[in-house]
């Protein structure tokens, strides 16, 4: 797992991709810091959330995950990985953590922001730490989804487009859900049935609303269930990735 992690992480920086991703992170964090701090809000946690709120993470994460498995398959290097005496899950985990560490590195500037700002005004450090915890879990969930999609295809381009579509769906799921009004009274069996379906769709869309869960971290009202929510998505998609690679052996 460590060998795969090291190679994968290094590979982000043997081409410009890793640097471009980090540059994008730093640019948007700087922008967020500028807006929010000049607004008179000294909480760096807000800057962290800013990246998720303006939706830029939904676009950066597919770039991080697009090559993870698709490129291996295209260049046939997966033959070295899958014929090595290593469990499949360790390969998947190595790749996941490589992508995750790159993502986490994107938020390093906020540490600097926090240090600088706390020198001038009293800030809520807990707020910052919770925000960081939330954004890490949020990113981990999206990375796991992207990695799974990358394992389905041979082309990084298809992988990135498909991941973007899924991410946009996640991004707007809150808005979609708010468009659904479930009737409170029903007159016949069909309407009852219809309202069931609406309820189902609405709760599915609400379940996909990562941002709402993330924001509960911002209000410092997060419960253990929010952490479990993200972690279970991560676990589920790591498992699915492993299955999808295993399935490929059987097809």
């Amino acid at each position, binding site marked *: 797992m460590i060998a*795969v992690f090291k190679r994968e992480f290094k590979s982000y920086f043997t081409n410009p991709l890793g640097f471009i991703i980090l540059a994008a992170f730093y640019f948007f964090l700087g922008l967020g810091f500028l807006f929010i701090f000049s607004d008179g809000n000294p909480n760096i946690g807000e800057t962290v959330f800013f990246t998720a709120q303006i939706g830029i993470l939904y676009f950066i994460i597919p770039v991080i995950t697009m090559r993870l498995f698709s490129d291996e398959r295209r260049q046939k290097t997966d033959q070295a990985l899958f*014929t090595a005496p290593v469990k499949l899950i360790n390969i998947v985990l190595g790749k996941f953590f490589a992508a995750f560490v790159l993502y986490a590195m994107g938020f390093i500037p906020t540490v600097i922001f926090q240090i600088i700002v706390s020198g001038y005004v009293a800030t809520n450090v807990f707020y910052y730490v919770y925000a960081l915890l939330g954004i890490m879990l949020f990113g981990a969930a999206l990375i796991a989804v992207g990695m799974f999609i990358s394992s389905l295809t041979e082309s990084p381009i298809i992988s990135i487009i498909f991941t973007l579509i899924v991410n946009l769906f996640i991004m707007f799921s809150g808005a979609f859900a708010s468009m659904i009004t479930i009737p409170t009274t029903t007159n016949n069996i069909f309407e009852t049935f219809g309202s069931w379906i609406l309820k189902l769709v609405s709760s599915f869309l609400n379940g996909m609303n990562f941002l709402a869960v993330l924001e509960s971290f911002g209000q410092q009202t997060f419960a253990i269930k929010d952490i479990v929510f993200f972690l279970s998505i991560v676990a589920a998609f790591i498992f699915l990735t492993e299955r999808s690679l295993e399935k490929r052996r059987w097809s």
Partner: protein
Amino acid sequence: MIEVTGLSKRYGTFLAVKNVNFSIEKGEVVGFLGPNGAGKSTIMNILTGYLSLTQGKVTIDGFDIAENPEAAKKRIGYLPELPPLYTDMKVREYLNFIYDLKKVKFPKKPHIDEIMRLVNINHVENRLIRNLSKGYRQRVGFAQALIGNPDVLILDEPTVGLDPQQIIEIRNLITRLGKNHTIILSSHILSEIQAVCDRIIIINYGEIIADDLQDNLSEKLSTEHSLVARVICDERDMLATLKTVKGVKDVVALGKKENGAYDFEIIPEEGADVRAGVSGRIADRKKQLLALTSSRLTLEQVFLKLTQASSNEEARKMLGFVDDEKTTTSEDFIIEMPTEDKEGEE
């Protein structure tokens, strides 16, 4: 060492490998021979655990590849058709990665150094794999398979796309490795396999159609040795003359082929070499011999015939009745050189 029983592989509705059985002893060098798409790569991918099997059982050194994949994979070094190289890495960096990936226990630096020396890539260790030529990439692929010193080496078309010089180098390398490894290599080129393997398994349409030691196979497939001579002469005279040569069983006139030149098929008695006698007699008569060709069915042609057969049944039949097939080859050899067959020269 390698035990394969009842192996089948299905891709959707297509049966790529059908009930394949073989077993390979420690230290054997075995060649998989077959045309492209015969199922050689599929079998190799199954042996190495890259693909699953639909039916059957594969054990490597007693470890089942399906039930105990890690132990089995530890004993295998695999060089796929396209070497699995990360082109954005340097050679040593890549080998270090493979070393870590395979969780090898030997001391790292000396082990990798030794392998790089063996395949002769130590002078490119700090170059990006992307910038290496095909021959070097293939050697890096070899190095990758050798890391961890596995007992079994599985090489899928190791010389494809290389220049003749590189082919010879790789062949020598395989011969050297064959002394203390069990090797399976595949090829669709017969001479390739003849050069390095003791045993040949011929695969076609996903089935094994022959599995024997190379010598036995050649013997089984080789046919009566007849010659075709082209001489400028009078046809009837020459026919009578040739019949009197010692060791000649029969001569058949094949008719006029060029300006004033006639072809004769000369069938010698068993075990007799009549080439010198025939050319000497023609010279005695002051006639010009233009060509003397062997009309033996070579192993190459047998292989072609076997693999082009419309069905494997037909191919197997050929193995038994191959003596009936006779064609003239283009294997011309100059009469002044009393050499053995061309095959022996290799």
